[in-house]
């Protein structure tokens, strides 16, 4: 009987951890798509890139964590804003921009994925960041490593801060106004283009944080960018584009699914379930469960 309890507890613990990290990345994607109508297919590669660069800075360049984390966020923002300058801003005014953005960002994703293989593929197949905290904590009856506990706490903090920002801060409320009704938002004097840039920056920053937390809690490999793209797109479509709360709830459900499936079978089968959920949602309610 005790054995079952341990398994159940470890499923709950890892489900919550995986789910919150999914939710962080999906919230970033969802903010971008909800506001700009840009399905950022290279967001998964930015997630992977953040983890890889953190790994490189820590193990190869010997940077301390407090310096490496802001450097990674700054690098992610620099990348995405140079893309905004060169590519994204051309299509802001198009009515059918979603499909254009989907294809362009898929191209960017393929490019980034190739660059990662070229730069990191020769070094190793898997990448694990040295844990920022040692030892284990007992959440009765399963041991959880302190590094994972730290990752979970940080992910939960980021999500809470994001929700608070969107509800309370002036800029956050402007963002929500744009994804609720962009015409009325414009009439009320909100600068749409700056709001787009804010969403892009905020979404990307959140995504890079998610990538670093994943790298701390688990082990990265070079295919995880595509897997994360699929998972976060599913979460976004099921939860509703633009809804952080939706991303959180659906992310947790997906995390638990993944944890439960991993007990019995290969976790990739869980991906199959997410894809079916997304497909069903596309047919039944393309705006998602948590849309206004």
């Amino acid at each position, binding site marked *: 009987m005790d054995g079952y309890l341990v398994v159940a507890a470890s499923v709950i613990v890892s489900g919550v951890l995986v789910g919150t990290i999914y939710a962080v990345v999906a919230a970033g994607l969802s903010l971008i798509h909800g506001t700009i109508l840009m*399905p950022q297919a290279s967001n998964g590669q930015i997630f992977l890139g953040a983890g890889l660069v953190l790994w490189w800075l820590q193990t190869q360049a010997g940077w301390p964590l407090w310096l490496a984390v802001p450097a990674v966020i700054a690098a992610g923002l620099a990348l995405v804003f140079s893309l905004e300058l060169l*590519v994204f801003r*051309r299509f802001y005014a198009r009515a*059918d921009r*979603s*499909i*254009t953005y*989907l*294809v*362009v960002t*898929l*191209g*960017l*994703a*393929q*490019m*980034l*994925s*190739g*660059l990662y*293989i*070229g730069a990191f*593929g020769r070094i190793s197949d898997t990448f694990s960041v040295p844990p920022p905290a040692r030892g284990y904590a007992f959440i009765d009856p399963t041991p959880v490593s302190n590094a994972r506990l730290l990752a979970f706490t940080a992910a939960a903090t980021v999500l809470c801060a994001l929700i608070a920002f969107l509800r309370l801060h002036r800029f956050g409320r402007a963002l929500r106004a744009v994804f609720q009704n962009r015409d009325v938002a414009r009439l009320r004097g909100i600068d749409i283009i700056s709001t787009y840039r804010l969403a892009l920056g905020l979404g990307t920053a959140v995504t890079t944080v998610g990538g670093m937390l994943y790298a701390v809690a688990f082990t990265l490999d070079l295919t995880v960018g595509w897997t994360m793209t*699929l998972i976060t*797109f*599913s979460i976004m*479509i099921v939860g509703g584009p633009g809804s952080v709360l939706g991303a959180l709830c659906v992310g947790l459900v997906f995390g638990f699914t993944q944890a439960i499936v991993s007990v019995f079978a*290969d976790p*990739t*089968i869980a*991906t*199959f379930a997410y*894809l*079916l959920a*997304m*497909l069903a949602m*596309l*047919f039944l309610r*393309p705006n998602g469960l948590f849309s206004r």
Partner: protein
Amino acid sequence: MKLRIAILVAALPLLGLFGDPKGLTVFIVGLVLINMLLASGLNLLYGFGGLIPFTFAGISGTSAFICCNLVLHAGWSFWIALPVGCVAASILGLALSFPAIRLRGFYFALSGLVIQSALTIAFIYFPSLTNGDTGITSIPRPTLAGQPIVSPWLEILIATATVLTVTGISALMRSPIGSMLIAIRDDEDLSRALGINVTAVRSLAFLIASLIAGLGGGVYAHYVGFVSPRTFDVLISLNLWLMVAVGGRGTLVGPLLGALILTPLPFIFQQYTWIKDVIYGGAIVVVIMFLPAGLFGLLQRRAS
């Protein structure tokens, strides 16, 4: 006129056949011709039908796996297995055209991405049919009277199939069905109001395009001799789409031109396979930003 250009472009890679029949050039020529075939099929849906079918590689792969399993394990002849694979692919394609009835534009493309990813996972999780991630190796070449067809002749056979396919698409596009397909692409509501059966015409386009995808997939498997789930993943769909877009969508020559330009590129940087992803990914961005009508469209504009 256009058909003449099409045949000219298709004949161009055949020039490469005057060389060592076992050499790399001849092999690349074969791949160019297969990609021309596949891109022409995709063009029917994207260029003439206005839908981006990200499921194309998966449909092609279904035929490839069925075809080489029938040859390797059931001992069928390639010439009987190939039509079976094609029919299976067109049935699958028709079933997967279902989202097109309800979803438009971005949502259709997204549903295609989802289905394609699910197909790739399915390929990996039926290792009895696909040998999982390792893939199926040493698939025999098509035979004629018991003998495997040797190199220059097999390429010439593929070239014939490609030219026949392009001629078929050309004839289809000059028929009323082709006009209806273009009318639906340009204004769906108006076409419906004019009494065009939108669902039937689109389904027919999917059926024919999937048949071509199946033909290309089966031929690819037996030409290259190796297939794995990754041979038919979402990036392949994306890159076939890229060939159509680079060449010029909605023209007969465009996909041929695109396949001719893009297929040999990775072979220049053989040691660094990742450069292919960087070039193709970059080409997608460039085409979307600067070449909406593709290279053939650019040439046509220069000419006029």
